[in-house]
């Protein structure tokens, strides 16, 4: 090469360095070996932007590659890096960075990727079973974890690239022991040592409060997130030990918490569960909250209660024959709720799946909630008090719980409901390293699912819904 050419190349290389920002990232293998002991045939990396894979950006590397250099991309927002390991074209493992922006000043944060085998759990942290996490609030780089004692920050990629748990920030004294729920990137803590509620930010600082007179609950309230800025607080136990029939809508306008009392339940109850869903009413999806289980003052047949967060419709109590109690529940689609497992009328743990169709404007004389028949096939493992996590339309992950002998169940199963032909199918998928009660779970922004089981944390890599 001539000297002039060498000079030209050097100048060009220098130009490339100055015009292209280098964005380093780490691909961290979690859980089961995502490279399958060297049998994977390729590592494929694709750029995603605004949730859409960018055509022509897929680059394949040797399965033993340690360095991945991606094609040049323009500055912009809403990027994500997708990493997959392939075996003859089949995707075996996948990971995705949290969304990030890149400007000439650099990336908003390092687009690190957690890579895991699809359909498997990767244990990421042990925990304190005596103080399990009660709520998972997704954040830009992980999640906030709320327990009865305080707030803990989960970072998907710590200094070494691996998941990390930061020190817990205790709740203020009146909120110790309270129930927690996500509210607009913050955590709303209801009750605890005193009635009322507090909104706590990511640093654990109280940024707004509701007085005890407006929300006289200390324990046992069922809470559901209606939307990013609204939650519904249902029932619970008051300071004097009495059960409350109260239904309170709590809204956050960015500066204040606004509590609005809605029409009360027919029967006061505590320790119920609340499942948010969209129901189709007058051809338009509208939010509703389904209340299940709970302890009531008077003995009565187990019922379901349908609540309208807007307060326009009064609470509707419906008794669905043959329904199990302590079933896992989640919304699968508009007007469709899945109940999985539970305890049947004989007191035994069951594996039955029930599809509830929720139609608030059902014909006069008809119940707004009905169980679909025929039901989907049952779970492989009968279980009660399991967790149900919506993976996507028609898809739910059923995880943990306890079997007929009250032993923890580690196996997870996916219930897949064909939304246009109903009912569906069930497949086994992965095993929790730490079996027990699932106390909280939520999808993170990197498309993994963070599952808390008796205080331990696992990431689930869904094989469906991609």
């Amino acid at each position, binding site marked *: *090469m*001539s000297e*002039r*050419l060498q*000079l*030209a*190349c050097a*100048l*060009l*290389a220098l*130009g*490339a360095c100055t*015009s*292209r*920002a*280098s*964005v*380093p*990232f*780490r*691909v*961290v*293998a979690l859980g089961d*070996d995502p*490279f399958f002991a060297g049998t994977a045939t390729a590592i494929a*990396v694709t*750029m995603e932007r*605004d949730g*859409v*894979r*960018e*055509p*022509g950006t897929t680059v394949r590397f040797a399965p033993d*590659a*340690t*360095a*991945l*250099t*991606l*094609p*040049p*991309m*323009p*500055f912009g927002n809403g990027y994500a*890096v997708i*990493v997959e390991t392939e075996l003859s*074209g089949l995707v075996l493992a996948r990971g995705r960075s949290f969304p990030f922006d*890149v400007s*000439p000043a650099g*990336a908003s944060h390092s*687009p690190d*990727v957690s890579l895991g085998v699809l359909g498997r759990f990767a244990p990421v942290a042990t925990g304190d079973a005596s103080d399990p996490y009660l709520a998972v609030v997704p954040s830009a780089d992980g999640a906030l974890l709320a327990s009865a004692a305080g707030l803990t920050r989960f970072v998907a990629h710590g200094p070494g*690239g691996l998941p990390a748990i930061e020190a817990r920030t205790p709740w203020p004294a009146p909120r110790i022991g309270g129930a927690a729920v996500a509210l607009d990137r913050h955590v709303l803590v209801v009750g605890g040592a005193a009635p009322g509620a507090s909104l706590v930010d990511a640093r654990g600082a109280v940024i707004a409060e509701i007085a005890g007179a407006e929300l006289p609950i200390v324990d046992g309230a069922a809470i559901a997130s209606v939307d990013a800025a609204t939650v519904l607080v249902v029932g619970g136990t008051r300071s004097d030990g009495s059960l409350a029939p109260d239904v309170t809508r709590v809204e956050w306008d960015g500066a204040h918490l606004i509590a609005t009392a809605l029409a009360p339940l027919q029967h006061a109850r505590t320790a119920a569960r609340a499942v948010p869903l969209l129901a189709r009413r007058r051809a338009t*999806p509208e939010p509703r909250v389904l209340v299940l289980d709970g302890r009531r003052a008077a003995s009565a047949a187990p019922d379901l209660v349908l609540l309208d967060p807007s307060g326009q419709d009064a609470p509707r109590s419906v008794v669905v024959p043959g329904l199990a109690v302590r079933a896992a529940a989640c919304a699968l689609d*508009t007007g469709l709720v899945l109940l999985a497992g539970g305890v049947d009328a004989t007191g035994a743990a069951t594996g039955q799946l029930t599809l509830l169709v929720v139609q608030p404007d059902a014909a006069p004389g008809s119940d707004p909630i009905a169980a679909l028949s025929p039901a989907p096939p049952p779970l492989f493992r009968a279980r009660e008090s399991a967790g149900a996590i919506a993976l996507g339309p*028609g898809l739910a992950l059923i995880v943990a719980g306890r079997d007929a002998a009250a032993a923890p169940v580690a196996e997870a199963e996916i219930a*897949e409901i*064909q939304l*246009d*032909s109903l009912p569906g199918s069930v497949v086994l998928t992965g095993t929790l390293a730490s079996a027990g009660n699932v106390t909280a779970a939520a999808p993170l922004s990197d498309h993994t699912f963070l599952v808390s089981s008796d205080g331990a944390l696992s990431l689930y890599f869904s094989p469906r819904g991609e």
Partner: protein
Amino acid sequence: MLVVRASEALAREASALADRIVERRTAEGVDIVRAPAPASAETPRGGVAEATLRADEAFAALALTDAERDLDAALEAADAEGVRSPAEIVAVMLLRAMVHGAMGDDARANEAVRHALAIDPALAVDPERYPPTLAARVEAARAAIPGCAVTLTVDPSDAAVAVDGVQRAMPPELGCGMHWVTVSRTGFASSTRRVVLGVGEGPAALAVALAVDPAAALAASGPPGAPIDPLVERGAAALGRRLRVLDLTREPGGGLHAVLGARSVRAAGSATPDELAAALLAPIDTGPDTAVVVGVGVGVGAAVAAAIAIGIGVALAPSTPGWIGVGEVIRP
């Protein structure tokens, strides 16, 4: 960057002049390479049709997994090449519906039918080609085809937009489902994006900014004497070069006239390209990092797509601002 412009009648002379310039620079020890051809219609296409044909054959042989894989390849080809017509991608979706239906996966079969109807709401299933079960599936899905909105922003703003292979006015109105949006403009590399519009969701936002295709931009440099289109400047900038234009014309007396900036070189009509190149290069130092591009004008304002693009050294070193991800794999 040197762009040589000439009329169509002087195409042979211009090409020969380019050859001589290349030979001379090579003799001076400068490494000259040709830049790639413009990414235009000459780019081979047909991956969608080929993959669909393979899938069709695999399906006929009841090799369902192979058929599914080939259909995935067809969709990937559509992502890479764009879609030439709605029928092309509708055929993929209908075959996909048959494959998934045969695999007992009704949900995905119906999803494929919905995507086909999103592209062609008036879809008529050919009974000669498709089974009655598929026709029934299509009719069942046709009952409600909701509309979805997409907020599409393109740069440059006068770029042409095609949806599923059909030119569309802005903003395009689409059925809910899968679509391929292709944005193109002369001088830019076309971009195809797959977008999936969901029922009940708000307008999907899609922003497409086209990148300059340097060779195509320079090929549009126009005839001798025409003003330089800013796009040509951008093409040169994309190659990291300062633009210089050499206009080659025929004198009324038959001689050749080459104009390079303020310098003008005239040669007799009998002058060989070698002599003209010598006359041009002797007094003009094009510098070590000069690239030479010859565009031969056709009619008014356009150059042939097969313009010869020649770069010196690493002519295609990118200078477009942006970023490069550099990953490190941390294994168990």
